[in-house]
């Protein structure tokens, strides 16, 4: 029997064919170019509420200590920035009073990660320029700002209006609902918690009491039930004679109100459960922006090659070897 017929016979061996296939696949990893494809990125304007009620500590940190809503929201945004695919861009604005204040136009999340992350980390309630918290006005203007920047919107707030809305309700949204997509993120626990109070040097000095805040908005016409209030007088006491009572000095996430706002503006509502979870919620709500990406085919080739080699070596062990080994020619 000559060498040629021996080689011919070896070429017919199933295990040789498997190994040769693996060799070809591994060789292919050196010439295969990554497959170009498009991925979904996002462009988003993140607006962070920095009003007083965001200082409420009703989240639990990793070590069980209470963490404020603002710190949790910042952690969630940083988590979001880290989770977005490269090429996505994020702009940051602060909200207090009745308007968002743009800190910077959209920044790319990978190449410029350090300044973006640093800027989110540096957000502080002390940056607030006024104490009011007119959520609906701020949200509507944020929607406008996002439309102007050509981005989606993530608006993080606890939904507590200060001063409280008048009985006639807040301002109406006059934009086109759904023109800007994105999330309203409700921060805070569902139960009431006290709001920390700070002095004019920024040091904490306790909590707000019932008498420290406006419990009822008494601008504009009185509510419909005013006539039944004690001491009601149409001219002298249109809101009743007794002082307003309420829980405006305590804070919880105002979910029904935020849902109403989300419906009016065409945004999606999501509750902030902790420092993670924003990426998934945003991915569902945001406009997908095509980004150039590439798929590395090498793991595919390598994986199949590995399976082939393992089949060659494992065959005798598994008994399937009869087929490979015992085959008579």
């Amino acid at each position, binding site marked *: 029997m000559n060498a040629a017929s021996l080689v011919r016979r070896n070429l017919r061996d199933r295990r040789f064919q498997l*190994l040769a296939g693996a060799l070809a696949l591994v060789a292919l990893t050196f010439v295969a170019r990554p497959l170009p494809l498009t991925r979904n990125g996002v462009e988003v304007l993140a607006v962070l509420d920095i009003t007083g009620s965001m200082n409420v500590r009703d989240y639990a940190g990793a070590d069980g200590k209470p963490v404020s809503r603002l710190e949790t929201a910042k952690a969630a945004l940083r988590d979001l920035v880290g989770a977005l695919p490269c090429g996505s861009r994020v702009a940051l604005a602060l909200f207090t009073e009745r308007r968002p204040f743009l800190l910077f136009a959209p920044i790319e999340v990978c190449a410029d990660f350090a300044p973006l992350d640093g*800027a989110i980390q540096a957000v502080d309630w002390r940056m607030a320029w006024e104490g009011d918290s007119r959520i609906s006005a701020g949200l509507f203007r944020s929607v406008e700002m996002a439309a102007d920047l050509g981005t989606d919107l993530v608006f993080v707030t606890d939904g507590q209006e200060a001063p409280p809305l008048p009985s006639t309700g807040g301002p109406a949204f006059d934009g086109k609902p759904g023109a800007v997509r994105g999330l309203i993120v409700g921060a805070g626990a569902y139960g009431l918690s006290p709001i920390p109070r700070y002095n004019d040097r920024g040091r904490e000095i306790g909590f707000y009491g019932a008498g420290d805040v406006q419990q009822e908005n008494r601008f504009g016409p009185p509510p419909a039930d005013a006539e039944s209030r004690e001491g009601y007088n149409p001219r002298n006491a249109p809101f009743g004679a007794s002082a307003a009572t309420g829980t405006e000095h305590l804070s919880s996430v105002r979910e029904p109100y935020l849902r109403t706002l989300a419906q009016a503006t065409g945004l999606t509502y999501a509750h902030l459960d902790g420092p993670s979870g924003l990426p998934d919620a945003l991915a569902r709500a945001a406009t997908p922006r095509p980004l150039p990406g590439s798929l590395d085919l090498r793991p595919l080739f390598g994986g199949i090659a590995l399976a082939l080699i393992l089949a060659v070596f494992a065959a005798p062990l598994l008994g399937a070897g009869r087929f490979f080994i015992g085959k008579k020619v």
Partner: protein
Amino acid sequence: MMRVSAEHSWLLWLLPLALLPLAVSSQRLTRVSSIAAGPLDGLSRAIGWSLRAAGFLAIGGLVVALSGPYRQGETITRTGIGAQVSILVDRSGSMNETFAGRQPSGAEESKAAASRRLLADFVGSRAHDQFAVTAFSTAPMLVVPMTDRHEAVRAAIAAIDRPGLDYTNVARGLAMALSQFGANAANVSRALLIVSDGAAVIDPRVQGALRAEFARIRPNLYWLFLRTKGSPSISDKPSGEDTPQAAPERHLDLFFKSLGTPYRAFEAEGAEAVADAIGQIERLERDPIPYTEQRPRRDLSRWAYGLSLIGLLALVAGKLAEADPSLRRRRGRVDASVVEPATSRLAA
């Protein structure tokens, strides 16, 4: 030091599979009546062991390659020409008016838009400058921390001609802009660039703290005063009482002069004057600055695939060169006691 890491390190748990070739051979099994009948053959042994090693290499190499090995990126510090510039931008409402103090109309440019355009050119004109941006109105706002990512700084500057806020509280803004320099690198050229169209009284209680900070950090101080036409100049003495409340610009200038740090004020009454001032600052701030360069991480899986390829080549060659003694026996041409071909012997 070179640090190697893997993207899917859990896949490395599959590495023991690479020991499979030690137990099982890829070669054909041949029954011989007595293995002891063959003499010990050094070459056969060597070939047998190298085939095992090849199998080990082929499987191990693929497992490592699939786990995505890479050499971690490094940060290298080099020295270039540039400066650390902390930009303090006035975002009070009046910045949205023109230099003539009107609402911009037609081709007119607001003060904020002019400074936005010119600052954007300034940032990035030299590769190794580092910038930090702080905004101030009623409260100071940290916009971008000190960074050499000029794209991010330009994104921050792009936001400065949006509607501004209410007041000009320069003292707290100064404190935050100073804090942007950080503690390290004392021998770096540092510049604090204030862009504002007005001034405010600095509370005497804060003045001492600010003075101490300036003395510690010793930045070169530049004040780009965007003066509205007809409003008092930095050097104008008020006709009445000369108090900080009556002439805040003049007294802020006096305060800066008294700091003992290098200080220049540029009074710009139009976009050209602003461009001129920025050009001067650029020329003045020319000192060596250490900057960091990020070396990207390097993919090492190519090497692992290469190792696997070598192993596979040997395995395939072994399979190709395989002889089958049982075949010969059946044909009756070879006596069974004849030594088997090297490769199949150890495999048996």
